[in-house]
């Protein structure tokens, strides 16, 4: 037996493996930092749209506001995509890699809430026909929440094929996020899963078909 070669190969492999784990941790940590930076950047982008909206509203000129609608909508659409990407990256860390960071998640919920209120405002101002859907879930106390999340995604993708745009916002109601708690209070959410479609609360679990009907009815 070539014990010496096995020994050296084992030692080398252990060193490389530990180095790989260490690099992996650095990469994970940098993923979190990147997400945090992206949240800040998106928050700033949203603030500029908000500022524009504020400037418009102070002029009390409805026609001017409406003329800015294409700008709002295109900017918001770009922001929405980026917010969604950040959400997926955060979910990847949590659901696939099991790396939890509550502070980062709260930061993200703040961004989502900002995006939600902005979308709501622009929807009213510009008569946009998208559907705003909030999914309230709990990671600690909800057996059907994962399934509900899946059904919402399926329904959203199917409706998109039918040219119905659903903007999705998800909040972990048990995380202790002030903004998530405020939204829960606003819509009277007491159990999970619960969904809010265009300001109407629907507690409980709904499958894809039921969701599509609810969304169609809310338009």
């Amino acid at each position, binding site marked *: 037996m070539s014990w010496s070669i096995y020994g050296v190969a084992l030692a080398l492999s252990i060193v490389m493996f530990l180095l790989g784990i260490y690099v*992996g941790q650095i990469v994970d940590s940098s993923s979190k930092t990147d997400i945090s930076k992206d949240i800040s950047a998106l928050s700033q982008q949203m603030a500029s749209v908000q500022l524009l909206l504020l400037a418009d509203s102070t002029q009390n000129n409805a026609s001017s506001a409406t003329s800015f609608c294409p700008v709002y909508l295109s900017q918001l659409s770009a922001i929405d995509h980026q917010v969604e990407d950040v959400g*997926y990256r955060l*979910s990847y860390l949590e659901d*696939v890699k099991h790396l939890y960071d509550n502070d980062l998640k709260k930061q993200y919920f703040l961004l989502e809430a900002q995006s939600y209120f902005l979308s709501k405002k622009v929807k009213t101002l510009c008569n946009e026909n998208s559907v705003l859907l909030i999914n309230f879930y709990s990671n600690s106390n909800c057996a059907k929440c994962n399934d509900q999340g899946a059904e919402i995604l399926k329904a959203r993708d199917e409706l998109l094929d039918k040219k119905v745009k659903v903007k999705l916002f998800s909040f972990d109601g048990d995380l202790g996020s002030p903004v998530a708690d405020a939204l829960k209070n606003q819509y009277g959410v007491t159990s999970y899963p619960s969904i809010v479609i265009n300001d109407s609360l629907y507690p409980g679990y709904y499958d894809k078909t039921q969701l599509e009907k609810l969304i169609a009815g809310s338009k």
Partner: protein
Amino acid sequence: MDIDFVLLINYVIAFITLFSVNFFILLYFKHKDSYLTRPDDSGIRPKVSIVIPAYNEGMYLEQCLQSVLSLDYPKEKLEIIMVDDGSTDDTCKIAKNIAASAEQSGFNFRVFTKENKGKGAALNFGIAKISGEFVATMDADSYLSPNVLLEMLPYFEDKNTMAVTPAVKIAPTRSWLKELQRVEYLMILFSRKILSFVDSVPVTPGPFSLFRSSVFSVVGGFDEKNLVEDQEIALRIQSHNFKIHSSLTAEVYTEPPAGIGELLKQRVRWQRGGVRNYWHYRKMIKPEYGDFGMYFIPMNFIALAAFFTIIGLLLYSFFIAPYYVRYIWVQTLGMNIDLFTFLVIFVVLSTTIFVSVAVKSFKGEKVNPIYILSFVAFYWYLMFGYNILMLIKELRQEAFSW
């Protein structure tokens, strides 16, 4: 399934891959200066019998037999035995014509015809008629370099050595599939040579292998029901604690499958036969069989288990994991660098380097780098297909066929 358990499996597979690659690299560096050398030639020229079984090999037979007749070896020390295994083409006629003119030139060349019973039976039929101290078995679609016996015989100075394998190569062609197989053969040769330094040569290749004739009276003849009989005999020889050496300087050329279908059929047969043989010889997983028993055979099972685990995990990710996890996985593809990314990069890089070093180590073998890259990027992954087909055929208990 708990995701952390999946992560643990990934770590285990990553570590085993890392260990195997490091083991190979260390073995290579330890023997870097000696892998193209052979033991000194004693100058003694023992009698060598060459047994050539053939079934419908009319197309390649002449080239094969002419290369045997052109060997750089005393003709009076050669005994050529051609076994026509019930061919339906002109194999027998070609063999008899060549044998007749060879006999006139002083060669001992005999041609036998028998009922078709498969390669193993034809080999045993021929071996029963030999009188040489050494016997070479040869495929009729292969041809030899003139120095092949002079390069292989010196390894038998070690009395415990019972077989020597040559460098089975594919001649440069214009067919992309054959060129890819050429790269593969060079890589296999290189690996086999490295493994020979720890007495772990897993096969005595059919195209040409040289045996000490007495080994067959100790371990028995070829397994006539085995479709990878060249591997089975190698395992059996080593199960008797005999050695097999590998030569990189004795060159033998063989004809590879020309089409994908033919290649797939050949490799699935190799995989099925290989797994069955290793399973049969699992009794060799003991310290008394050295590196072959304690590293090589277990590593074959581990590699197969790792392969199907990876397939299982991929299927799990795509079909069984919760929808939202799959959704996120797809949405974040390319956005996140994780252990899997590193593992893929490591495997691709190390395979590329390994194949490049392997090809480069054969001085005089010119391979277009495009084929090396294509090998790593595409051809290598045919292995997935071979293994999956092997599993399906084994589960369905399909009969073996050539």
